[in-house]
Protein backbone atom coordinates (compact mmCIF):
# COMPACT_ATOMS: atom_id res chain seq x y z
CA UNK A 1 0.00 0.00 0.00
CA UNK A 2 2.78 2.38 0.86
CA UNK A 3 4.73 1.35 -2.19
CA UNK A 4 4.25 4.65 -3.91
CA UNK A 5 5.43 6.66 -0.95
CA UNK A 6 8.46 4.47 -0.37
CA UNK A 7 9.30 4.60 -4.03
CA UNK A 8 9.15 8.35 -3.99
CA UNK A 9 11.23 8.51 -0.83
CA UNK A 10 13.83 6.15 -2.23
CA UNK A 11 13.90 8.14 -5.44
CA UNK A 12 14.51 11.34 -3.53
CA UNK A 13 17.19 9.72 -1.46
CA UNK A 14 18.94 8.39 -4.49
CA UNK A 15 18.72 11.75 -6.14
CA UNK A 16 20.02 13.55 -3.06
CA UNK A 17 22.84 11.04 -2.81
CA UNK A 18 23.83 11.66 -6.39
CA UNK A 19 23.66 15.43 -5.91
CA UNK A 20 25.23 15.43 -2.47
CA UNK A 21 28.48 16.98 -3.57
CA UNK A 22 26.77 19.68 -5.61
CA UNK A 23 24.53 20.52 -2.66
CA UNK A 24 27.63 20.96 -0.55
CA UNK A 25 29.21 23.47 -2.95
CA UNK A 26 26.00 25.32 -3.62
CA UNK A 27 25.38 25.32 0.12
CA UNK A 28 28.55 27.36 0.55
CA UNK A 29 27.38 29.74 -2.18
CA UNK A 30 23.97 30.05 -0.54
CA UNK A 31 25.54 30.83 2.84
CA UNK A 32 27.56 33.60 1.20
CA UNK A 33 24.38 34.82 -0.52
CA UNK A 34 22.48 34.96 2.75
CA UNK A 35 25.28 36.76 4.61
CA UNK A 36 26.33 39.29 2.02
CA UNK A 37 23.12 39.82 0.07
CA UNK A 38 20.02 38.84 2.03
CA UNK A 39 20.78 40.09 5.53
CA UNK A 40 21.84 43.60 4.45
CA UNK A 41 18.46 43.92 2.73
CA UNK A 42 16.81 43.37 6.08
CA UNK A 43 18.66 46.52 7.20
CA UNK A 44 16.17 48.53 5.17
CA UNK A 45 13.64 48.23 8.02
CA UNK A 46 15.87 50.53 10.10
CA UNK A 47 14.60 53.39 7.99
CA UNK A 48 11.20 53.11 9.71
CA UNK A 49 12.75 53.18 13.19
CA UNK A 50 14.89 55.49 15.20
CA UNK A 51 17.87 53.15 15.14
CA UNK A 52 20.91 53.41 17.37
CA UNK A 53 23.60 50.74 17.05
CA UNK A 54 23.83 48.44 20.03
CA UNK A 55 20.24 49.08 21.12
CA UNK A 56 17.51 46.54 20.43
CA UNK A 57 15.00 47.47 17.79
CA UNK A 58 11.78 47.69 19.79
CA UNK A 59 8.39 48.94 18.68
CA UNK A 60 8.56 52.08 20.77
CA UNK A 61 11.37 53.22 18.51
CA UNK A 62 9.12 52.84 15.46
CA UNK A 63 8.70 56.22 13.74
CA UNK A 64 6.89 55.27 10.55
CA UNK A 65 7.66 57.57 7.65
CA UNK A 66 9.19 60.34 9.78
CA UNK A 67 12.67 59.87 8.28
CA UNK A 68 11.31 60.12 4.75
CA UNK A 69 9.25 63.20 5.51
CA UNK A 70 12.04 65.01 7.33
CA UNK A 71 14.23 64.63 4.23
CA UNK A 72 11.72 66.49 2.09
CA UNK A 73 11.29 69.11 4.78
CA UNK A 74 15.03 69.77 4.94
CA UNK A 75 16.50 72.69 3.06
CA UNK A 76 19.00 70.40 1.31
CA UNK A 77 16.43 68.16 -0.34
CA UNK A 78 15.63 70.21 -3.37
CA UNK A 79 19.25 71.13 -4.07
CA UNK A 80 20.33 67.51 -3.93
CA UNK A 81 17.54 66.43 -6.23
CA UNK A 82 18.37 69.29 -8.57
CA UNK A 83 22.07 68.40 -8.70
CA UNK A 84 21.29 64.73 -9.28
CA UNK A 85 18.89 65.54 -12.12
CA UNK A 86 21.17 68.14 -13.75
CA UNK A 87 24.37 66.09 -13.68
CA UNK A 88 22.58 62.93 -14.77
CA UNK A 89 20.76 64.88 -17.47
CA UNK A 90 24.03 66.26 -18.81
CA UNK A 91 25.50 62.73 -18.86
CA UNK A 92 22.49 61.40 -20.73
CA UNK A 93 22.54 64.12 -23.41
CA UNK A 94 26.02 65.53 -24.05
CA UNK A 95 27.70 62.50 -22.50
CA UNK A 96 25.55 60.15 -24.57
CA UNK A 97 26.19 61.84 -27.89
CA UNK A 98 29.97 62.12 -27.53
CA UNK A 99 30.79 58.42 -28.11
CA UNK A 100 28.40 58.25 -31.09
CA UNK A 101 30.21 61.13 -32.76
CA UNK A 102 33.60 59.60 -31.94
CA UNK A 103 32.54 56.20 -33.34
CA UNK A 104 31.38 57.80 -36.59
CA UNK A 105 34.65 59.72 -36.83
CA UNK A 106 36.73 56.61 -36.20
CA UNK A 107 34.82 54.71 -38.85
CA UNK A 108 35.64 57.32 -41.47
CA UNK A 109 39.40 56.85 -41.08
CA UNK A 110 41.13 55.28 -44.05
CA UNK A 111 44.36 54.58 -42.23
CA UNK A 112 44.12 51.41 -40.12
CA UNK A 113 47.11 52.08 -37.89
CA UNK A 114 45.99 55.62 -37.02
CA UNK A 115 42.53 54.32 -36.18
CA UNK A 116 43.96 51.66 -33.90
CA UNK A 117 46.20 54.19 -32.17
CA UNK A 118 43.35 56.61 -31.51
CA UNK A 119 41.19 53.77 -30.20
CA UNK A 120 43.91 52.51 -27.88
CA UNK A 121 44.49 56.01 -26.51
CA UNK A 122 40.81 56.71 -26.09
CA UNK A 123 40.13 53.50 -24.09
CA UNK A 124 42.89 54.19 -21.61
CA UNK A 125 41.28 56.74 -19.27
CA UNK A 126 38.54 54.18 -18.61
CA UNK A 127 41.03 51.99 -16.76
CA UNK A 128 42.54 54.50 -14.41
CA UNK A 129 40.75 55.19 -11.16
CA UNK A 130 38.70 58.25 -10.36
CA UNK A 131 41.36 59.18 -7.83
CA UNK A 132 43.86 59.49 -10.67
CA UNK A 133 41.43 61.41 -12.88
CA UNK A 134 40.64 63.78 -10.03
CA UNK A 135 44.36 64.25 -9.35
CA UNK A 136 44.95 65.06 -13.00
CA UNK A 137 42.07 67.52 -13.01
CA UNK A 138 43.28 69.21 -9.86
CA UNK A 139 46.90 69.33 -11.03
CA UNK A 140 46.05 70.80 -14.42
CA UNK A 141 43.11 73.03 -13.58
CA UNK A 142 44.06 74.66 -10.29
CA UNK A 143 45.13 78.29 -10.18
CA UNK A 144 48.81 77.57 -10.93
CA UNK A 145 48.12 74.58 -13.19
CA UNK A 146 49.13 74.36 -16.81
CA UNK A 147 45.68 75.21 -18.18
CA UNK A 148 45.47 78.52 -16.37
CA UNK A 149 49.09 79.22 -17.26
CA UNK A 150 48.26 78.89 -20.96
CA UNK A 151 45.04 80.87 -20.63
CA UNK A 152 46.90 83.78 -19.05
CA UNK A 153 49.76 83.58 -21.55
CA UNK A 154 47.35 83.70 -24.48
CA UNK A 155 45.63 86.66 -22.89
CA UNK A 156 42.23 84.97 -22.70
CA UNK A 157 41.88 86.08 -19.12
CA UNK A 158 44.04 88.30 -16.95
CA UNK A 159 43.76 86.13 -13.86
CA UNK A 160 43.43 82.42 -13.18
CA UNK A 161 39.95 80.96 -13.66
CA UNK A 162 38.83 79.15 -10.48
CA UNK A 163 37.56 75.98 -12.23
CA UNK A 164 37.72 73.92 -9.04
CA UNK A 165 36.76 76.32 -6.32
CA UNK A 166 33.81 78.11 -7.79
CA UNK A 167 30.48 76.29 -7.82
CA UNK A 168 29.25 77.56 -11.15
CA UNK A 169 31.96 75.60 -12.99
CA UNK A 170 31.24 72.29 -11.28
CA UNK A 171 28.53 70.86 -13.56
CA UNK A 172 30.58 71.62 -16.63
CA UNK A 173 33.73 70.25 -15.04
CA UNK A 174 32.17 66.96 -13.97
CA UNK A 175 30.49 66.46 -17.35
CA UNK A 176 33.75 67.06 -19.21
CA UNK A 177 35.57 64.63 -16.91
CA UNK A 178 32.86 61.97 -17.26
CA UNK A 179 33.17 62.24 -21.04
CA UNK A 180 36.97 62.34 -20.89
CA UNK A 181 37.05 59.10 -18.91
CA UNK A 182 34.45 57.05 -20.80
CA UNK A 183 34.07 58.40 -24.33
CA UNK A 184 36.49 55.96 -25.97
CA UNK A 185 35.25 52.93 -24.09
CA UNK A 186 31.62 53.71 -24.90
CA UNK A 187 32.37 53.61 -28.64
CA UNK A 188 32.99 49.84 -28.56
CA UNK A 189 29.35 48.81 -28.93
CA UNK A 190 28.77 51.41 -31.65
CA UNK A 191 31.89 50.28 -33.49
CA UNK A 192 30.69 46.69 -33.51
CA UNK A 193 27.28 47.86 -34.77
CA UNK A 194 29.00 49.82 -37.54
CA UNK A 195 31.10 46.79 -38.45
CA UNK A 196 27.88 44.90 -39.13
CA UNK A 197 26.58 47.33 -41.76
CA UNK A 198 26.12 45.84 -45.20
CA UNK A 199 28.89 47.19 -47.47
CA UNK A 200 26.56 47.09 -50.49
CA UNK A 201 24.69 50.06 -49.02
CA UNK A 202 27.79 52.21 -49.37
CA UNK A 203 28.39 50.96 -52.90
CA UNK A 204 24.79 51.77 -53.81
CA UNK A 205 25.25 55.18 -52.22
CA UNK A 206 28.37 55.79 -54.27
CA UNK A 207 26.46 54.90 -57.43
CA UNK A 208 23.76 57.38 -56.43
CA UNK A 209 26.51 59.97 -56.06
CA UNK A 210 26.24 60.87 -52.38
CA UNK A 211 29.40 62.23 -50.82
CA UNK A 212 31.23 61.24 -47.64
CA UNK A 213 29.09 63.33 -45.34
CA UNK A 214 26.00 61.94 -47.04
CA UNK A 215 27.20 58.39 -46.35
CA UNK A 216 27.48 59.17 -42.65
CA UNK A 217 24.18 61.01 -42.58
CA UNK A 218 22.07 58.63 -44.69
CA UNK A 219 23.71 55.23 -44.28
CA UNK A 220 25.90 54.81 -41.20
CA UNK A 221 23.81 56.79 -38.73
CA UNK A 222 20.43 55.24 -39.66
CA UNK A 223 22.02 51.78 -39.64
CA UNK A 224 23.23 52.09 -36.05
CA UNK A 225 20.04 53.84 -34.89
CA UNK A 226 18.65 50.64 -33.25
CA UNK A 227 21.84 50.37 -31.14
CA UNK A 228 21.62 54.05 -30.22
CA UNK A 229 17.97 53.75 -29.21
CA UNK A 230 18.61 50.59 -27.21
CA UNK A 231 21.56 52.05 -25.31
CA UNK A 232 19.63 55.23 -24.64
CA UNK A 233 16.69 53.31 -23.23
CA UNK A 234 18.97 51.24 -21.05
CA UNK A 235 20.68 54.37 -19.77
CA UNK A 236 17.31 55.45 -18.37
CA UNK A 237 17.61 52.56 -15.94
CA UNK A 238 20.89 54.00 -14.69
CA UNK A 239 19.59 57.54 -14.46
CA UNK A 240 20.16 57.85 -10.72
CA UNK A 241 23.47 55.95 -10.68
CA UNK A 242 25.58 58.82 -11.86
CA UNK A 243 28.62 57.85 -9.83
CA UNK A 244 29.57 59.51 -6.58
CA UNK A 245 33.33 58.89 -6.52
CA UNK A 246 34.08 61.81 -8.83
CA UNK A 247 31.81 64.17 -6.90
CA UNK A 248 33.35 63.21 -3.57
CA UNK A 249 36.87 63.65 -4.88
CA UNK A 250 36.39 66.91 -6.75
CA UNK A 251 33.75 68.56 -4.62
CA UNK A 252 35.00 71.08 -2.11
CA UNK A 253 33.16 72.46 0.86
CA UNK A 254 32.78 75.79 -0.95
CA UNK A 255 31.07 74.20 -3.95
CA UNK A 256 28.88 71.71 -2.08
CA UNK A 257 25.75 73.48 -3.26
CA UNK A 258 26.49 72.21 -6.78
CA UNK A 259 27.95 68.76 -6.26
CA UNK A 260 26.02 67.12 -3.42
CA UNK A 261 23.95 64.33 -5.01
CA UNK A 262 21.78 61.66 -3.40
CA UNK A 263 24.60 59.14 -3.02
CA UNK A 264 27.08 61.56 -1.48
CA UNK A 265 24.35 62.83 0.84
CA UNK A 266 23.65 59.28 2.02
CA UNK A 267 27.38 58.80 2.60
CA UNK A 268 27.74 62.04 4.53
CA UNK A 269 24.71 61.56 6.77
CA UNK A 270 25.09 57.81 7.22
CA UNK A 271 28.79 57.19 7.60
CA UNK A 272 30.22 60.57 8.56
CA UNK A 273 27.42 61.90 10.76
CA UNK A 274 26.01 58.57 11.95
CA UNK A 275 22.36 59.35 11.22
CA UNK A 276 21.70 55.80 10.08
CA UNK A 277 17.91 55.64 9.89
CA UNK A 278 17.67 58.92 8.05
CA UNK A 279 20.26 58.03 5.45
CA UNK A 280 18.88 54.52 4.93
CA UNK A 281 15.50 56.11 4.21
CA UNK A 282 17.01 58.34 1.53
CA UNK A 283 18.95 55.46 0.04
CA UNK A 284 15.79 53.35 -0.01
CA UNK A 285 13.84 56.01 -1.86
CA UNK A 286 16.59 56.22 -4.44
CA UNK A 287 16.70 52.42 -4.86
CA UNK A 288 12.94 52.16 -5.33
CA UNK A 289 12.93 54.85 -8.01
CA UNK A 290 16.01 53.21 -9.53
CA UNK A 291 14.40 49.77 -9.74
CA UNK A 292 11.24 51.31 -11.19
CA UNK A 293 13.36 53.03 -13.84
CA UNK A 294 15.10 49.74 -14.70
CA UNK A 295 11.74 48.03 -15.17
CA UNK A 296 10.37 50.90 -17.23
CA UNK A 297 13.51 50.97 -19.39
CA UNK A 298 13.39 47.23 -19.83
CA UNK A 299 9.70 47.35 -20.71
CA UNK A 300 10.27 50.01 -23.35
CA UNK A 301 13.26 48.12 -24.75
CA UNK A 302 11.29 44.90 -24.99
CA UNK A 303 8.39 46.63 -26.68
CA UNK A 304 10.26 48.68 -29.26
CA UNK A 305 13.40 46.64 -29.86
CA UNK A 306 13.96 42.91 -29.71
CA UNK A 307 16.40 43.18 -26.82
CA UNK A 308 15.96 43.27 -23.08
CA UNK A 309 18.30 43.11 -20.14
CA UNK A 310 16.27 40.82 -17.92
Amino acid at each position, binding site marked *: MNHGAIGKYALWRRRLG*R*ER*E*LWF*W*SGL*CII*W*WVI*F*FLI*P*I*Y*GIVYSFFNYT*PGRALTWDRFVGLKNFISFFQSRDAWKIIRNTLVISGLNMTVGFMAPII*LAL*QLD*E*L*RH*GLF*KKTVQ*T*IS*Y*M*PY*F*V*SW*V*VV*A*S*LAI*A*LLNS*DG*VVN*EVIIKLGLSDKAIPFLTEGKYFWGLITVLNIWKTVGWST*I*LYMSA*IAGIDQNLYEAGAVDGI*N*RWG*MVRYITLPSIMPTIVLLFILSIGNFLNLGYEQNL*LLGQSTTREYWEIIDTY*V*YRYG*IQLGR*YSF*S*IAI*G*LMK*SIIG*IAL*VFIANGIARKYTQY*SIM
Partner: protein
Amino acid sequence: MKQVNYIKRTPSGTIFDIVNVSLLVALSFLLLYPFWNQLIISLNDGLDAQRGGLYFWPRVFTLGNYEYIFKTAGMLRALGWSVLRVIVGTSTKLFATGMLAYITTVSYFSFHRQLRKMFLITMYISGGMIPIYLWMIKLHLIETFTVYWLPSLLGAYEMMIIASYIASLPDAMFESARMDGAKEFKIYLNIVLPLCVPVFAALGVMVAVGHWNSWFDIMIYNPSGNYDTLQMELRNILIQSDKVKKLMQDATVGSDAVKSAAARITSQSMRAATMMIVTIPIVAVYPFFQKYFVKGISIGAVKG
Protein backbone atom coordinates in the same frame (compact mmCIF):
# COMPACT_ATOMS: atom_id res chain seq x y z
CA MET B 1 37.22 48.31 -41.22
CA LYS B 2 35.26 49.93 -43.96
CA GLN B 3 36.55 49.67 -47.50
CA VAL B 4 35.92 53.08 -48.97
CA ASN B 5 37.92 52.54 -52.14
CA TYR B 6 34.92 52.78 -54.39
CA ILE B 7 34.34 56.36 -53.31
CA LYS B 8 35.84 58.91 -55.66
CA ARG B 9 38.45 61.16 -54.13
CA THR B 10 36.88 64.59 -54.32
CA PRO B 11 38.04 67.93 -52.88
CA SER B 12 35.18 67.93 -50.41
CA GLY B 13 36.16 64.42 -49.37
CA THR B 14 39.71 65.56 -48.71
CA ILE B 15 38.50 68.45 -46.55
CA PHE B 16 36.29 65.97 -44.71
CA ASP B 17 39.32 63.79 -44.03
CA ILE B 18 41.49 66.70 -42.89
CA VAL B 19 38.86 67.99 -40.47
CA ASN B 20 38.17 64.51 -39.15
CA VAL B 21 41.81 63.59 -38.62
CA SER B 22 42.63 66.92 -36.97
CA LEU B 23 39.72 66.56 -34.56
CA LEU B 24 40.88 63.06 -33.62
CA VAL B 25 44.47 64.21 -33.17
CA ALA B 26 43.19 67.00 -30.90
CA LEU B 27 41.13 64.49 -28.91
CA SER B 28 44.09 62.14 -28.54
CA PHE B 29 46.15 65.06 -27.28
CA LEU B 30 43.50 65.96 -24.72
CA LEU B 31 43.38 62.36 -23.53
CA LEU B 32 47.13 61.82 -23.36
CA TYR B 33 48.55 65.17 -22.38
CA PRO B 34 47.35 65.25 -18.74
CA PHE B 35 49.30 62.03 -18.10
CA TRP B 36 52.35 63.36 -19.91
CA ASN B 37 52.23 66.63 -18.00
CA GLN B 38 52.22 64.82 -14.67
CA LEU B 39 54.96 62.44 -15.85
CA ILE B 40 57.36 65.31 -16.59
CA ILE B 41 56.47 67.06 -13.33
CA SER B 42 57.20 63.84 -11.45
CA LEU B 43 60.58 63.65 -13.21
CA ASN B 44 61.42 67.29 -12.56
CA ASP B 45 62.97 68.87 -9.51
CA GLY B 46 60.17 69.83 -7.14
CA LEU B 47 61.17 73.41 -6.34
CA ASP B 48 61.98 74.11 -9.96
CA ALA B 49 58.59 72.80 -11.13
CA GLN B 50 56.85 75.42 -9.00
CA ARG B 51 58.15 78.12 -11.32
CA GLY B 52 55.77 76.80 -13.96
CA GLY B 53 56.40 76.72 -17.68
CA LEU B 54 56.85 72.95 -17.83
CA TYR B 55 54.99 71.78 -20.92
CA PHE B 56 56.60 68.96 -22.81
CA TRP B 57 59.95 68.08 -21.28
CA PRO B 58 61.45 68.14 -17.76
CA ARG B 59 63.72 71.10 -17.15
CA VAL B 60 65.77 69.83 -14.22
CA PHE B 61 65.62 66.07 -14.54
CA THR B 62 65.66 64.01 -11.33
CA LEU B 63 64.44 60.67 -10.04
CA GLY B 64 64.47 62.15 -6.55
CA ASN B 65 60.69 62.32 -6.22
CA TYR B 66 60.32 58.58 -6.79
CA GLU B 67 63.31 57.77 -4.64
CA TYR B 68 61.82 59.82 -1.86
CA ILE B 69 58.40 58.19 -2.13
CA PHE B 70 59.84 54.72 -2.02
CA LYS B 71 61.89 55.61 1.02
CA THR B 72 58.89 56.68 3.05
CA ALA B 73 57.56 53.60 4.76
CA GLY B 74 53.88 54.38 4.17
CA MET B 75 54.08 54.23 0.40
CA LEU B 76 55.87 50.90 0.25
CA ARG B 77 53.33 49.38 2.60
CA ALA B 78 50.53 50.82 0.52
CA LEU B 79 52.04 49.29 -2.60
CA GLY B 80 52.18 45.96 -0.76
CA TRP B 81 48.50 46.12 0.20
CA SER B 82 47.57 47.11 -3.36
CA VAL B 83 49.38 44.13 -4.84
CA LEU B 84 48.06 41.74 -2.20
CA ARG B 85 44.52 42.98 -2.70
CA VAL B 86 44.72 42.50 -6.47
CA ILE B 87 46.16 38.98 -6.17
CA VAL B 88 43.90 37.71 -3.37
CA GLY B 89 40.80 39.50 -4.62
CA THR B 90 41.11 38.40 -8.23
CA SER B 91 42.12 34.77 -7.64
CA THR B 92 39.48 34.06 -4.98
CA LYS B 93 36.73 35.74 -6.97
CA LEU B 94 37.51 33.92 -10.20
CA PHE B 95 37.91 30.55 -8.50
CA ALA B 96 34.73 30.80 -6.41
CA THR B 97 32.56 32.42 -9.06
CA GLY B 98 33.83 29.88 -11.60
CA MET B 99 32.67 27.04 -9.33
CA LEU B 100 29.30 28.73 -8.87
CA ALA B 101 28.99 29.21 -12.63
CA TYR B 102 29.85 25.55 -13.22
CA ILE B 103 27.21 24.36 -10.72
CA THR B 104 24.54 26.44 -12.46
CA THR B 105 25.31 24.62 -15.72
CA VAL B 106 25.05 21.07 -14.32
CA SER B 107 21.65 20.12 -15.68
CA TYR B 108 21.07 17.03 -13.50
CA PHE B 109 21.39 19.13 -10.36
CA SER B 110 17.82 19.89 -9.27
CA PHE B 111 18.64 23.34 -7.89
CA HIS B 112 20.78 24.74 -10.69
CA ARG B 113 18.19 27.10 -12.16
CA GLN B 114 17.13 28.51 -8.80
CA LEU B 115 20.75 29.03 -7.80
CA ARG B 116 21.33 31.03 -10.96
CA LYS B 117 18.25 33.14 -10.30
CA MET B 118 19.28 33.76 -6.70
CA PHE B 119 22.47 35.36 -7.90
CA LEU B 120 20.89 37.22 -10.80
CA ILE B 121 18.71 39.11 -8.31
CA THR B 122 21.84 40.51 -6.69
CA MET B 123 22.43 42.53 -9.85
CA TYR B 124 19.24 44.51 -9.38
CA ILE B 125 18.68 44.76 -5.64
CA SER B 126 21.02 45.52 -2.79
CA GLY B 127 20.68 46.58 0.80
CA GLY B 128 22.33 49.89 0.03
CA MET B 129 25.43 51.60 1.32
CA ILE B 130 24.39 52.10 4.96
CA PRO B 131 22.71 48.74 5.74
CA ILE B 132 25.74 46.96 4.28
CA TYR B 133 28.06 49.19 6.30
CA LEU B 134 26.19 48.51 9.54
CA TRP B 135 26.21 44.78 8.82
CA MET B 136 29.96 44.83 8.14
CA ILE B 137 30.44 46.42 11.57
CA LYS B 138 28.38 43.64 13.15
CA LEU B 139 30.37 40.99 11.29
CA HIS B 140 33.59 42.56 12.63
CA LEU B 141 34.84 43.00 9.09
CA ILE B 142 35.69 46.65 9.72
CA GLU B 143 39.44 47.22 9.95
CA THR B 144 40.35 43.93 8.30
CA PHE B 145 41.91 42.93 5.02
CA THR B 146 39.11 40.38 4.52
CA VAL B 147 36.62 43.14 3.75
CA TYR B 148 38.44 43.75 0.44
CA TRP B 149 37.68 40.36 -1.05
CA LEU B 150 35.04 38.40 0.89
CA PRO B 151 31.98 40.64 0.32
CA SER B 152 32.67 40.67 -3.43
CA LEU B 153 33.66 37.00 -3.67
CA LEU B 154 30.78 35.89 -5.89
CA GLY B 155 29.75 38.10 -8.78
CA ALA B 156 26.55 37.60 -10.74
CA TYR B 157 27.86 39.28 -13.88
CA GLU B 158 30.98 37.12 -13.94
CA MET B 159 28.85 34.06 -13.18
CA MET B 160 26.69 34.70 -16.24
CA ILE B 161 29.65 35.13 -18.54
CA ILE B 162 31.52 32.06 -17.29
CA ALA B 163 28.32 29.98 -17.32
CA SER B 164 27.54 30.90 -20.91
CA TYR B 165 31.09 29.92 -21.83
CA ILE B 166 30.82 26.57 -20.04
CA ALA B 167 27.46 25.94 -21.69
CA SER B 168 29.15 26.26 -25.08
CA LEU B 169 31.56 23.43 -24.26
CA PRO B 170 30.60 19.89 -25.32
CA ASP B 171 28.55 18.23 -22.59
CA ALA B 172 29.95 14.79 -23.41
CA MET B 173 33.25 15.72 -21.82
CA PHE B 174 31.68 16.20 -18.41
CA GLU B 175 29.42 13.17 -18.81
CA SER B 176 32.28 10.83 -19.55
CA ALA B 177 34.25 12.17 -16.58
CA ARG B 178 31.21 11.52 -14.39
CA MET B 179 30.91 7.98 -15.79
CA ASP B 180 34.49 7.42 -14.72
CA GLY B 181 33.43 8.42 -11.22
CA ALA B 182 35.08 11.82 -11.08
CA LYS B 183 33.88 14.16 -8.37
CA GLU B 184 32.30 17.43 -9.52
CA PHE B 185 35.05 19.43 -7.87
CA LYS B 186 37.64 17.37 -9.76
CA ILE B 187 35.79 18.05 -13.00
CA TYR B 188 35.84 21.75 -12.22
CA LEU B 189 39.55 21.72 -11.43
CA ASN B 190 40.75 19.47 -14.23
CA ILE B 191 38.33 20.11 -17.08
CA VAL B 192 36.46 23.37 -16.61
CA LEU B 193 39.32 25.55 -15.37
CA PRO B 194 41.79 24.70 -18.15
CA LEU B 195 39.14 25.12 -20.84
CA CYS B 196 37.92 28.44 -19.46
CA VAL B 197 41.31 30.14 -19.51
CA PRO B 198 40.27 32.68 -22.20
CA VAL B 199 37.17 33.83 -20.35
CA PHE B 200 39.00 33.81 -17.01
CA ALA B 201 41.74 35.97 -18.51
CA ALA B 202 39.23 38.49 -19.85
CA LEU B 203 37.34 38.68 -16.56
CA GLY B 204 40.48 38.48 -14.45
CA VAL B 205 41.90 41.61 -16.02
CA MET B 206 38.66 43.46 -15.33
CA VAL B 207 38.43 42.27 -11.73
CA ALA B 208 42.11 43.04 -11.10
CA VAL B 209 41.78 46.57 -12.45
CA GLY B 210 38.70 47.04 -10.28
CA HIS B 211 40.60 45.99 -7.16
CA TRP B 212 43.63 48.09 -8.05
CA ASN B 213 41.44 51.16 -8.62
CA SER B 214 39.05 50.94 -5.71
CA TRP B 215 39.30 53.36 -2.83
CA PHE B 216 35.80 54.11 -1.59
CA ASP B 217 35.40 50.82 0.27
CA ILE B 218 38.79 51.37 1.88
CA MET B 219 37.72 54.79 3.05
CA ILE B 220 34.54 53.56 4.71
CA TYR B 221 35.62 50.12 5.96
CA ASN B 222 39.21 50.81 6.99
CA PRO B 223 39.18 54.37 8.26
CA SER B 224 42.23 53.90 10.50
CA GLY B 225 44.47 53.64 7.46
CA ASN B 226 46.12 50.39 8.50
CA TYR B 227 45.24 48.75 5.18
CA ASP B 228 45.55 51.80 2.91
CA THR B 229 46.43 51.00 -0.69
CA LEU B 230 48.19 53.26 -3.17
CA GLN B 231 44.89 54.72 -4.40
CA MET B 232 44.07 55.67 -0.85
CA GLU B 233 47.49 57.27 -0.33
CA LEU B 234 46.99 59.30 -3.48
CA ARG B 235 43.52 60.28 -2.38
CA ASN B 236 44.91 61.37 1.00
CA ILE B 237 47.55 63.52 -0.67
CA LEU B 238 44.78 64.99 -2.79
CA ILE B 239 42.27 65.74 -0.07
CA GLN B 240 44.30 66.29 3.07
CA SER B 241 47.24 68.64 2.86
CA ASP B 242 48.30 67.65 6.39
CA LYS B 243 48.96 64.15 5.10
CA VAL B 244 51.63 65.57 2.80
CA LYS B 245 53.20 67.43 5.70
CA LYS B 246 53.26 64.24 7.74
CA LEU B 247 54.93 62.32 4.95
CA MET B 248 57.49 65.10 4.62
CA GLN B 249 58.16 65.05 8.34
CA ASP B 250 58.77 61.31 8.12
CA ALA B 251 61.79 62.09 6.03
CA THR B 252 63.38 64.46 8.53
CA VAL B 253 64.16 61.50 10.78
CA GLY B 254 65.66 59.51 7.90
CA SER B 255 69.21 59.42 6.58
CA ASP B 256 70.98 62.53 5.28
CA ALA B 257 70.34 61.59 1.68
CA VAL B 258 66.61 61.35 2.36
CA LYS B 259 66.67 64.66 4.21
CA SER B 260 68.30 66.55 1.39
CA ALA B 261 65.85 65.03 -1.09
CA ALA B 262 62.95 66.04 1.14
CA ALA B 263 64.00 69.67 1.02
CA ARG B 264 63.36 69.76 -2.72
CA ILE B 265 60.02 67.92 -2.68
CA THR B 266 56.78 69.82 -3.06
CA SER B 267 53.24 68.55 -2.68
CA GLN B 268 52.87 69.06 -6.43
CA SER B 269 55.79 66.78 -7.33
CA MET B 270 54.79 64.27 -4.68
CA ARG B 271 51.27 64.05 -6.05
CA ALA B 272 52.56 63.70 -9.59
CA ALA B 273 54.97 60.91 -8.68
CA THR B 274 52.37 59.01 -6.64
CA MET B 275 49.90 59.32 -9.48
CA MET B 276 52.44 57.87 -11.89
CA ILE B 277 53.14 54.92 -9.58
CA VAL B 278 49.40 54.22 -9.47
CA THR B 279 48.91 54.65 -13.21
CA ILE B 280 52.01 53.05 -14.73
CA PRO B 281 51.08 49.42 -13.93
CA ILE B 282 47.72 49.91 -15.67
CA VAL B 283 49.25 51.63 -18.67
CA ALA B 284 51.96 48.98 -18.85
CA VAL B 285 49.66 45.95 -18.90
CA TYR B 286 46.86 47.64 -20.81
CA PRO B 287 48.13 47.35 -24.42
CA PHE B 288 48.70 43.61 -23.95
CA PHE B 289 45.28 43.01 -22.48
CA GLN B 290 43.31 45.40 -24.63
CA LYS B 291 41.74 42.61 -26.66
CA TYR B 292 40.61 40.89 -23.46
CA PHE B 293 39.05 44.12 -22.23
CA VAL B 294 37.17 44.57 -25.47
CA LYS B 295 36.19 40.90 -25.48
CA GLY B 296 34.93 41.30 -21.93
CA ILE B 297 32.48 44.04 -22.84
CA SER B 298 31.37 42.24 -26.00
CA ILE B 299 30.54 39.04 -24.11
CA GLY B 300 28.57 41.12 -21.65
CA ALA B 301 26.72 42.90 -24.40
CA VAL B 302 25.27 39.85 -26.11
CA LYS B 303 23.77 38.42 -22.93
CA GLY B 304 20.32 39.78 -23.88
